[in-house]
């Protein structure tokens, strides 16, 4: 799968989709795209359903994004699906952050949750 970061406007919120692998080498770009979305969007969904790998540098970006969304009163949710890579699930579980991040098991669920936020 080709690595990439896509940003779309869906149901009045921004959806940032991370495809493929993301780590320290892409964390700054991921952060920039999320920050840009959070400047104007009423809600933000981050879709990891096509993400095969993330490391703690990207996890930090996700946590910061949730904190910023909460501060702004914007809706926020992360889609972590069955199709997300083993490493994505594993990192969230090992760090205990699966219970602290607002996650949904599907892209549609995350979009709905962030829109309602």
């Amino acid at each position, binding site marked *: 799968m080709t690595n990439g970061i896509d940003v779309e406007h869906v149901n009045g919120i921004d959806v940032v989709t991370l495809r493929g*692998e993301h*780590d*320290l*080498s892409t*964390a*700054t770009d991921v952060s920039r795209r999320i920050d840009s979305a959070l400047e104007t969007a009423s809600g933000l969904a981050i879709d990891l359903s096509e993400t095969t*790998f993330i*490391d*703690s*540098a990207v*996890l*930090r970006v996700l*946590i910061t994004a949730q904190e910023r969304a909460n501060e702004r009163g914007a809706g926020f949710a992360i889609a972590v699906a069955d199709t997300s*890579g*083993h*490493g994505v699930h*594993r*990192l969230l579980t*090992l*760090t205990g952050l699966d219970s602290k991040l607002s996650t949904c098991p599907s892209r549609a669920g995350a979009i709905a949750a962030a829109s309602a936020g």
Partner: protein
Amino acid sequence: MGAVSERVEIEIAAAAPGVPLVRHALRGLLSGLEVDDDVIADIALAVTEACTNAVVHAYRDSSGTISVTASHADGALTVIVRDHGTGMAPRVDTPGLGVGLPVIAAIAQSVEIGSPRGGGTEVRMRFALAGDAE
């Protein structure tokens, strides 16, 4: 038939673009060893965290290299991530969460962190290649 032993050595610049290169090289080694995909994914995660720690902490404002050696024998993979920098000093502006070492420790059978002769930091990790291995 005797035990199969394979070895990969890679040296990267201590910079973020090198991190995925190490991960891909390791996957290349493991893909020929009939190792479960989830085990490969775990090892990839742990080694990525070790390399990220080296990139973030070893050289700070100077440049340097990171060497990674992976050797396979007797159902286990040993990976050594070595830098020649100033050591893993705390860094308040770290781009990570400070969870790298706990993640490595949770995945690896064993992890040793040392200061080798000549300076720098060496992280030596041993991974079971069978899912049910101790």
